[in-house]
């Protein structure tokens, strides 16, 4: 094991895959000599050259379209979207072309591509801050992953690049400065496998991406109050690891779903419904962003999204320890 920053884990995963498979190419804004907006492609341009590490103009639609077409024609592109908010500009080739390609061509064509997009609120205001994960979960044909640790960033990105695609790989601005253990030997993490970060018998807290970090912090506070939480990091939003989730909630009987995005038609809404179908009698609660755009003001931003304190409150409310 080595301790790597999240961004270093990403760079290592990409470099290994580029060495392994010459069809892997990178497309995105500022990813070449600049080394990526989050320094997550540092060194790749120098190592693999301008034909495989291509800076794109500020044009997300054609960037995703290039990736989709190149994937369909035999490459394995990884397209970088600096802010997931801008993926909206590239949703047409992703959703209307890539996600439907295998189906509509009756298996003759596939789009083995990855869109790596960075989500989350970190002081940059309404259109550089959103969590659109649940939108993407809604699309048949799309795989969606969202790691929260450096090790998962490494293992999931490698799997995503090798998968028949298309995959949207969502990371988070607040994760890049964090460090974590990454195995020294090559390790792939299967799509559709959640990770149990902490074991407890009273409540299951389900989160993904940066909210997994916040949920773990909350679980420590809950433990002080005598509440032991299972904390499950989804890692993969589609496919969903129903087995790991169901095993946990069968033991705890209570599930709290935490996400940074909106709760309306959110990740938690889908998981709560799916788990209640599998585990009758399950008690559920969900916590997400308030129904307001993210602000550039730090006060308004932190008011809009869940934090450890609100997770603790929601958990205690679900367990009947505080008034609803």
């Amino acid at each position, binding site marked *: 094991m080595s301790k790597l920053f999240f961004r270093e884990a990403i760079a290592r995963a990409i470099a290994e895959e580029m060495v392994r498979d010459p069809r892997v190419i990178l497309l995105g804004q500022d990813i070449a000599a600049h080394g990526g907006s989050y320094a997550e492609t540092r060194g790749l341009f120098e190592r693999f050259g301008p034909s495989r590490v*291509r800076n794109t103009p500020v044009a997300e639609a054609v960037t995703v379209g*290039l990736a*989709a077409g190149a994937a*369909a024609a035999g490459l394995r592109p990884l397209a970088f979207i600096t802010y997931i908010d801008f993926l909206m500009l590239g949703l047409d*080739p992703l959703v209307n072309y890539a996600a439907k390609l*295998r*189906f509509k061509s009756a298996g003759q064509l596939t789009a083995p591509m990855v869109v790596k997009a960075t989500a989350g609120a970190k002081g940059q205001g309404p259109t550089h801050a959103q969590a659109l994960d649940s939108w993407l979960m809604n699309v048949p*044909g799309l795989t969606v992953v969202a790691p929260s640790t450096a090790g998962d960033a490494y293992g999931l990105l490698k799997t995503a690049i090798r998968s028949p695609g298309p995959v949207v790989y969502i990371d988070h601005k607040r994760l890049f400065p964090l460090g974590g253990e990454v195995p020294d030997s090559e390790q792939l993490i299967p799509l559709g496998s959640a990770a149990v970060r902490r074991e407890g018998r009273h409540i299951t807290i389900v989160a993904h991406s940066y909210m997994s970090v916040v949920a773990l912090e909350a679980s420590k506070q809950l433990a002080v109050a005598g509440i032991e939480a299972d904390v499950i990091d989804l890692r993969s939003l589609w496919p969903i690891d129903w087995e790991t989730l169901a095993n946990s909630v069968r033991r705890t009987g209570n599930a709290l779903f935490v996400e940074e995005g909106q709760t309306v038609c959110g990740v938690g809404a889908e998981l709560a419904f799916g788990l209640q179908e599998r585990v009758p009698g399950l008690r559920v609660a969900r916590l997400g962003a308030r129904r307001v755009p993210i602000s550039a003001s730090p006060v308004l931003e932190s008011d809009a999204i869940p934090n450890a304190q609100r997770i603790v409150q929601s958990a205690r409310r679900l367990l009947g320890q505080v008034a609803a």
Partner: protein
Amino acid sequence: MISLKHRSETAFRLPGGLQSTLENRTFFKPSLIYVNRLTNTPLQAGGIVATDRLRRLRAMLLLRSFESALLRQPKPGFQLLSRGEEAIAVGICTALERTDPLLCSGRSIGMALARGVPAGGLLAELAGKDGGPNKGRAGRAHVSMPSVGLFGAHGVVGGNISVAAGVALAQQQLGTHAVTCCVFGDGACGAGSLHETLNVAALWQLPLLLICDNNGFAVSTSVRQGIAAPSLTDLATPFGVPAAAVDGTDVDAVVSATVDAAAAIRAGYGPRFLEMRCVRMGSHSTLTREERLAADVERFIESDPLLIYERRLRDDGVLDDERWVRIQAEVNEDIAEAEKFVEAASWPDPEAAMLDV
């Protein structure tokens, strides 16, 4: 024949303040078939042998007859027909190499047939039956058959353009020397994807041939109403992409323009843009009402590429009555076979379809 003049067409006023839906298109035979805008020199088709020309005529007739057969089907569905645009489909597919990926818009029936998708299979695809190349899932708007060079139609207007750039990028990266050809309508010229793609294709010198099938209308919106540029070729020139206008009712002109552009691209000179002007003889789709003036619609026959080519081949002594009757009989046989095929084809299995999601 279509005028290659554009801005000189001043919208003329009809009595009662009605504007002609055709905006005073002129229908004279252009003396210049194809002009390279960079060198401003006319490029002429090389000597074409008679059998090649008869093959082009037959292919155009097949497209025309196929669509008539489609309309005779019990449920033809929501179809975008190619009547009036056959010379573009046949000309492009004649010029491309088999290994050149072709992407087209949802007006794909002519493109698919011209590219070599079997008529029976295509009819089954349009009907949503299992015997189609995409097992009936794709239909007209998304039909694909990579094995014959039809990389695929795409139903989103302009949506195929950036995807085609990606296909071209793959060819460049893999060193295949293939030219990726993307055909889209004039409506797509207002879409951002064309402009983003022209920029990247020029920056990266992608082996991409962009062809606008300009049939004059995006459903009911004329080119003049929808595009500010005086000529669609003007859209490519700011990016340094050589562009030319082609008479899209002249199959030989389409072939020679496509051959020349593809040769330049294959030689490594980067992307090219061709605007092929034609007339959409029918309404936008089988479900769209015709709003163009009856007097204008009557004049479409002057731009009928099939009729124009039949006459020319007769004039040139390549075609006589006997030969024409024989070609028609052959095509009718193909169509009859296709009709039998679609009737016998089964419906798709929904469970099997789930496996390809």
